[in-house]
């Protein structure tokens, strides 16, 4: 149930998307361009004959010139299907349907073969669709070739066996072993039965026809309704895979109804408003985006246009927004659903009501003049009593010829929402700062709301701001716009909006800053003022910057509310950041190289002094051993010392600590050995000398 309700709501929504509610336009050029877009064959041909038929039929109804190659390719696939002995009744049915528009040549032998095959399948049919395709095929052959003798031998028997699928509520089943019944099947059954009647060689029993009539009336009892008067059929079985959706279902019923009304002489006694409701349904869906839906819509509208029950007429309006400034006149078009001409008639404006009020009509009943050039009915000049605003106009259509009333149906009265717009006069606008206690005017300034203003005012929290203006309609009445806002915007982008109230023509707003201090978040500073006056009926809606007011408000107490955060500009939120380069530590300051070298020279000086001192003391090498063994040790000892010292030099130049220590280890052992030998020799020599 919930789903049905939701579906209902949205379909309603889609309908209201299409046009402002309660307004329907007949088929126009937008449908023609959409048809060419939707029915585009890929690689020259359509996927199936069914699609080919739908395309050809849509083009035919809309009066679009068929491309010759489209017909040629269609003919090729038609003759293929018709010629092949393996094609089913369904294939044949659509081939013949397409052929009824493409009008290709089918040779007699083939058509004879088809007749016998279809006749056989009629007698062997067990389900509704079998009957539909085979009977439909036979009817099409009969219509296409006058020579072929096509008739059903046992028409009444076939009629009864199809009728056996019907249910008591006017819906039909697809076959005897399928308990589900649907309105879609009812449409198919009606079309089949209409075919049987036209193929019957003898009269069908009238009682059968009249029970069928009752079925149709019962079926129409289950019709569903939208708010705007559109009527449609929908099947309750949503889960069944045969579920078709309201558009296909309604279309199927309508096709069946039209076919049946065409073959029976009787009046079906269906009220015309049902047909009008169906027309509203099909027009309300605008331009469908699906080829199948599009075909269903156009084909159903064609059925409505040519049916024998009643042909609905549609009132269309080129414009329902009328401007008093441009002196627009109200124009009404009357046409059938496909937009074709209608017999002579009179359109009357019966009444006009201000929307929302239930007062008496504002205008007297009057006829609209027919303009031959445009084919529209025109009301020259709006009545004086119609000022700007929105109204509901009520129209009545009277057909001139009484016999047309049987054929056409218009509905008793049509209500149409009309909006009338005009220029609103803005006068006496002024802005003033008042002293609170006395109400005396401190500074008052005139405003020109049509032009630019750059008013600068200043006020403190003990004062008031007053803005006033007057609005009058073109007919001199007071006007209350839907939108009359005064906006104050602080430098920090905090906005405050006030609705400007009125008493009669006079609009006035007084801002008492003392009471607004908290609302203004105690924000002192410059406030930009902006006035917006707008209404649907106002042609000169305006948004003007008045200027600014410098407010001096008291300091915010601690617990005062903070202003809300303001949106950040998205462009500034992103973007590259400023580059960062690392600042390296500055190297230590060093003395100039010359200074270092000079001091290096100075450090050599003590060594020189030491050498000079040694020479002065008269150092000699007389103690140097003379014997070869101690002399060798002495030499080795000093070479070792030299090597250690040299190792230190190398340690400075290139070696690391570990290499140095390793080498020093070897040298140390060597030095201890040779040092001990030479030193003990020297000690022994000196002891000898002493003892001597």
């Amino acid at each position: 149930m919930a789903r049905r309700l939701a579906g209902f709501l949205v379909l309603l929504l889609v309908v209201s998307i299409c046009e402002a509610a309660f307004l329907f336009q007949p088929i126009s050029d937008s449908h023609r361009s959409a048809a060419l877009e939707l029915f585009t064959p890929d690689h020259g041909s359509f996927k199936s004959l069914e699609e080919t038929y739908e395309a050809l039929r849509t083009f035919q109804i809309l009066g679009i010139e068929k491309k010759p190659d489209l017909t040629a390719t269609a003919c090729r696939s038609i003759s293929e299907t018709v010629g092949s002995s393996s094609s089913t009744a369904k294939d044949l049915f659509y081939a013949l349907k397409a052929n009824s528009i493409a009008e290709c040549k089918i040779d007699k032998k083939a058509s004879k073969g088809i007749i016998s095959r279809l006749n056989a399948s009629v007698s062997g049919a067990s389900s509704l669709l079998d009957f539909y395709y085979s009977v439909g095929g036979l009817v099409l052959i009969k219509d296409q070739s006058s020579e072929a003798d096509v008739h059903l031998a046992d028409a009444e028997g076939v009629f009864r066996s199809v009728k056996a699928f019907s249910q008591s509520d006017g819906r039909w089943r697809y076959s005897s072993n399928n308990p589900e019944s649907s309105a879609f099947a009812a449409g198919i059954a009606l079309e089949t039965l209409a075919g049987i009647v036209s193929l019957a060689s003898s009269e069908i029993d009238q009682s059968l026809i009249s029970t069928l009539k009752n079925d149709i009336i019962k079926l129409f009892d289950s019709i569903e309704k939208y708010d705007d008067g559109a009527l449609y059929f929908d099947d309750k079985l949503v889960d069944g895979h045969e579920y078709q959706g309201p558009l296909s279902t309604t279309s199927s019923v309508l096709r069946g109804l039209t076919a049946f009304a065409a073959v029976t002489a009787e009046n079906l006694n269906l009220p015309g408003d049902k047909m009008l409701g169906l027309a509203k349904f099909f027009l309300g869906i605008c331009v469908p985006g699906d080829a199948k839906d599009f075909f269903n819509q156009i084909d159903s509208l064609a059925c409505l246009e040519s049916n024998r029950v009643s042909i609905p007429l549609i009132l269309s309006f080129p414009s329902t927004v009328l401007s008093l400034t441009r002196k627009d006149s109200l124009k009404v078009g009357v046409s059938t659903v496909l937009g074709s001409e209608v017999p002579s008639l009179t359109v009357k404006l019966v009444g006009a009501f201000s929307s929302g009020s239930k007062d008496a009509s504002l205008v007297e009943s009057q006829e609209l003049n027919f303009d031959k050039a445009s084919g529209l009915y025109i009301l020259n000049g709006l009545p004086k009593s119609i000022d700007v605003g929105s109204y509901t106009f009520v129209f009545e259509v009277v057909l001139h010829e009484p016999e047309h009333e049987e054929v056409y149906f218009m509905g008793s009265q049509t209500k149409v929402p009309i909006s009338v717009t005009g220029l609103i006069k803005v006068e006496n606008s002024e802005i003033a700062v008042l002293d609170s206690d006395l109400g005396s005017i401190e500074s008052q300034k005139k405003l020109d709301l049509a032009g630019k203003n750059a008013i600068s005012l200043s006020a403190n929290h003990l004062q008031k701001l007053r803005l006033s203006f007057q609005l009058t309609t073109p007919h001199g009445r007071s006007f209350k716009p839907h939108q009359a806002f005064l906006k104050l915007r602080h430098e920090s982008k905090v906005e405050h909006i006030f609705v400007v109230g009125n008493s009669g023509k006079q609009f006035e707003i007084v801002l008492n800053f003392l009471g607004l201090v908290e609302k203004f978040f105690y924000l002192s500073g410059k406030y930009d003022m902006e006035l917006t006056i707008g209404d649907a009926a106002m042609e000169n809606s305006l948004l003007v910057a008045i200027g600014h007011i410098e407010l001096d408000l008291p300091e915010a107490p601690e617990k005062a509310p903070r202003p809300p955060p303001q949106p950040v500009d998205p462009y500034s939120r992103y973007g590259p950041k400023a580059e960062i380069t690392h600042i390296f530590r500055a190297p230590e300051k060093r003395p100039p190289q010359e200074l270092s070298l000079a001091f290096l020279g100075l450090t050599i000086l003590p060594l020189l002094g030491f050498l000079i001192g040694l020479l002065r003391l008269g150092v000699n090498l007389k103690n140097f051993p003379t014997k070869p063994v101690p002399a060798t040790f002495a030499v080795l000892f000093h070479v070792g010392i030299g090597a250690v010292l040299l190792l230190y030099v190398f340690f400075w130049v290139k070696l690391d600590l570990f290499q140095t220590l390793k080498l020093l280890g070897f040298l140390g052992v060597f030095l201890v050995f040779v040092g001990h030998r030479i030193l003990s020799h020297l000690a022994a020599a000196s002891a000898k000398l002493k003892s001597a």
Partner: protein
Amino acid sequence: MGKLWLICIASISILLPFLCNAFSPETPTDRRVLVLLDDFAIMSSHSLYFNALKSRGFDLEFKLADDPKIALQRYGQYLYDALILFCPSVERFGGSIDVAAIVNFVDSGHDLIVAADVNASDLIREVGTECGVDFDEDPSAMVIDHIGYAVSGTEGDHTLIASDDFIKSDVILGGKKIEAPILFRGIGHAVSPANSLVLKVLSASPSAYSANPKSKLSTPPPLTGSAISLVSIVQARNNARLLITGSLSMFSNRFFRSGVQKAGSQTKHEKSGNEQFLTEISKWIFHERGHLKAVNVKHHRVGETDEPALYRINDELEYAVEIYEWSGTSWEPYVANDVQLQFYMMSPYVLKTLSSDKKGLYSTSFKVPDVYGVFQFKVEHQKLGYTSLSLSKQIPVRPYRHNEYERFIPAAYPYYGAAFSMMAGFFIFSFAHLYSK
């Protein structure tokens, strides 16, 4: 053997639907979209939009929003990559879908398009709130604009708005300028200023306000001026993308085909900008634009090619990364001049704009700061409309070793000289002391 193959193929074909995931740089194609509708009539009335998606290779699956069989995931795997909610009046989703399921769907990186409308249900409003926007609470409020409305012969209440206040971003709206205004009829929403992820793509004009057109206003409307957002987008932190709008009819064939003339302007456009606008923005939503990936992050010392395990302070290094943008069919080089690299430890020590070779390669070179510790190479690229790119790579920086310092400092020559002269003196003294008589 043949049987085994059959089993293999069968199991793959069974598993295949469950292997579909959110947009990922590894498998960016094959995207399945679930479209939830209030009524199947929308399939036909909004077919141009759906066909545009289908022609770009999306696999749309249409379901009624209250279909009891719908589900977003099965056995922990998501069945769809994106969700389109064209069901403004649904009170309760069918199957296992609820607001939490939709939030989880987005949280796992999937995309979402939500269209509300006048009389939108609480459920759809709740979805909007979860996405970070607040629709006008008055159920019958619409956006009205008495100055920026679309001129129409049949609609006199100025709720059909022609708006052309777009976000300035080529990546969101495509490179081609949208000439014609956008037709909009529906409810407005506000974007929370605290939420930095939501962006207004289409804003109302300063004269717009959100109110019930049929009743008189006594209090100021909650939403006015350009604070009203008509169409908003969200790019979540996980790069899931969302589109929220208060008008379902702006997607309809009628608005796509309809001509538009903005009040007060003399130019009459043959076709509204809706088709271009919504198609371009759907490319963004479905990651056909603005989705970046970074590959081949390389860094090495100048003059070398191998990546070292660590750097020494004051090393000269080169950093390079390749960045590509998904174009719907292939990865194209991303061209920009504001990709920046940070050399980061607690705070950026170096922040440098990478130079591009226009073929997707971004590179730069700089000197490692003289601070040692564990650093990161960071590329944090955030740009309006692009997915955020966040790369980081840890790299330690060490100080000089003892033998890497300078060895022969002229200022120290006096000290060396003193030591060596001392050593020479000692050598000579050893002779004088031992052998002098």
